[in-house]
């Protein structure tokens, strides 16, 4: 018995509904947080920040957001890219209109704006279900991208229609713009990740989360036992979009620095985030992190392996990379359709039963 929950007694219901009911898990969680906040900022360099950690953190937020909508509330959305664009353009407008306000506030406001837009595009979900809804969210995806491309007000009338993030600060330290220190980029993203994960966890363990899951598992039955599908679905769209908006804002302002909407927030982005949710595990916050990590690291790893270690021509590697990513995705789905989070759970279950097979 390497991993035990027996002997870990709860005496109150509150203790039973905490995030990590098992003491061992709790310790591990604090350890991860401590490393993330207290160690990494001092050792991080440009490459790690920009190629791995910052995108990982930002995608984690987006994946948590989409996971709330798709994993918890069962509404498949392919509009993630579009909603990220809303976050990005909101934060851009806010940054340029109110240069002196802290970025933290701008990012949160961008989240709220996206939440409103998300809720509006969530309205059809009351009638349209399953894949029809998924395809319908593409309407949001394409429309939003077109809108940001077409209306000059959104990009402050720049000649090319691109937006680029000017230097902005949090408490006197630059967090956007080209001169930002990698640690600053990392920390602002980490701040939002921690916040979002906490909020998401709180929402999903209480009555709101149960409403969502009820709608996901059987919407008719949920309605008959007293869940108002309108508020449940729209709130899921809003909360999900809030997170996705924050991710979009950080993606533009902190990570890329400049954005062309059709490229950075195109349909590929929607697929990517959905992949993260699914590979990580639908309906699991841990899964969102795992999925984001997997898909951020995979191409980097494949490239290192192919070009740097094996020395193949980069075009062949690029093609092989497509083949490998595709094959790995299929392989994963076959091996464990419920994602990395489920693998983790099974591993724990095995440990618990160890040394017996079942």
């Amino acid at each position: 018995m390497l991993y035990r929950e027996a002997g870990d007694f709860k005496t109150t219901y509150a203790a039973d509904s905490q995030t990590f009911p098992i003491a061992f898990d709790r310790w591990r969680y604090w350890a991860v947080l401590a490393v993330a906040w207290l160690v990494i900022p001092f050792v991080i360099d440009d490459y790690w920040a920009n190629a791995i950690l910052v995108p990982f953190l930002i995608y984690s937020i987006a994946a948590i957001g989409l996971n709330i909508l798709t994993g918890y509330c069962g509404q498949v959305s392919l509009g993630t890219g579009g909603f990220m664009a809303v976050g990005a353009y909101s934060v851009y407008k806010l940054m340029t209109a109110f240069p002196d306000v802290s970025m933290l506030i701008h990012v949160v406001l961008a989240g709220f704006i996206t939440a409103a837009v998300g809720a509006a595009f969530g309205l059809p979900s009351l009638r349209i279900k399953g894949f029809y809804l998924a395809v319908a969210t593409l309407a949001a995806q394409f429309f939003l991208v077109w809108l940001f491309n077409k209306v000059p007000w959104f990009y402050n009338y720049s000649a090319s229609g691109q937006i680029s993030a000017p230097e902005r600060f949090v408490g006197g330290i630059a967090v956007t713009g080209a001169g930002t220190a990698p640690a600053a980029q990392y920390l602002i993203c980490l701040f939002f990740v921690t916040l979002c994960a906490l909020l998401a966890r709180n929402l999903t363990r209480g009555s709101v989360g149960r409403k969502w899951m009820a709608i996901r598992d059987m919407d008719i039955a949920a309605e008959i036992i007293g869940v108002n599908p309108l508020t449940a679905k729209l709130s899921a769209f809003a909360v999900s979009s809030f997170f996705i908006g924050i991710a979009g804002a950080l993606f533009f302002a902190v990570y890329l620095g400049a954005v062309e909407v059709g490229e950075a927030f195109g349909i590929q982005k929607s697929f990517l985030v959905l992949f993260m949710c699914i590979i990580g595990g639908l309906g699991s916050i841990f899964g969102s992190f795992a999925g984001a990590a997997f898909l951020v690291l995979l191409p980097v790893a494949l490239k290192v392996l192919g070009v740097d270690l094996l020395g193949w021509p980069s075009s062949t590697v690029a093609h092989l990379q497509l083949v490998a990513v595709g094959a790995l995705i299929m392989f994963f789905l076959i091996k464990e359709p419920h994602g990395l989070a489920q693998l983790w759970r099974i591993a724990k279950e095995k440990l618990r039963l160890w040394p017996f097979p079942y």
Partner: protein
Amino acid sequence: MSADILYTFEVVINGLMSGVLYALVALGFVLIFKASGIFNYAQGVMALFAALTLVGIMEGQVPFAHVINATFGTDIHTFGWTVPALLGIALTLVVMIVFAWMVHTFVFRHLVGQEPIILFMATIGLAYFLEGVGDLMWGSDIKTLDVGIPQGGSLWVENISAHLGGDDFYGFFIDKLDITASIVAAILVAGLIVFAQYTKQGRAMRAVADDHQAALSVGISLNFIWVLVWSLAGMVALVAGVMWGAKSGVQFSLSLIALKALPVLMLGGFTSIPGAIVGGLIIGVGEKLFEYTVGPMVGGATENWFAYVLALIFLVFRPQGLFGERIIERV
């Protein structure tokens, strides 16, 4: 008649024709979705792959030449023969059937009974995979596909319609390729409808779609049915690939026509073969007309999103699409 009305009419006709081309892609989706509940995002890439293979076979290219050359330092590119179009098409069909078998055996057979979204994601994985394989196999340069389909505006139509309007009306423009595509699509759809509604295999296919377990229990071989529909979808992909390839050359972007087919599906219903056609026509006309009338006012390039918004509006009134099977909601 005033030229304006005539030109609008021309837009409508051309919209219908474009719609047929969208429908060709949508048909492949419908077949697979109907029989396995798999929303096959890879349909577009399959069209690309089929077209690439056809060109490769017709021109006698050596598959994987780049990889072979890179690995063994050789310098081979073609076998030095060319294959006539019809034989090429037949050989490509064989390749697509092998492909169908492989997809089923190595991927989807292991995913039976999974949730639709998992299957959907697997098809996106398949799309990446197939795209990479296509590139490795046939190279990523643009290829010209010529199987002898006439192209260009039909002068005949233009001439006999020119006198309908005044001096500033030049007659209707209809692309000969589009006419061919319409005829092919009509034949394909008729054939598929007969297959699905009136044959034993077609009925089995619909049964499988409803309930895998029950289908197994009455002795329907899921493997056979699925290989069958993937093969059919491969065939449809080939047709779509040939039509689109003739239009814009065979190259990567061909796979993106999947995105044009999605609103068509949504509007027509994921499970309806006639729906794919009607949906295609409505989307084709709708988006062209919108771009033509409203587009200039809002800065154009509206087609991508308008198709989706149009489909969305329809869905709000009929959540299962125009011809989709009613969603049975009972408790």
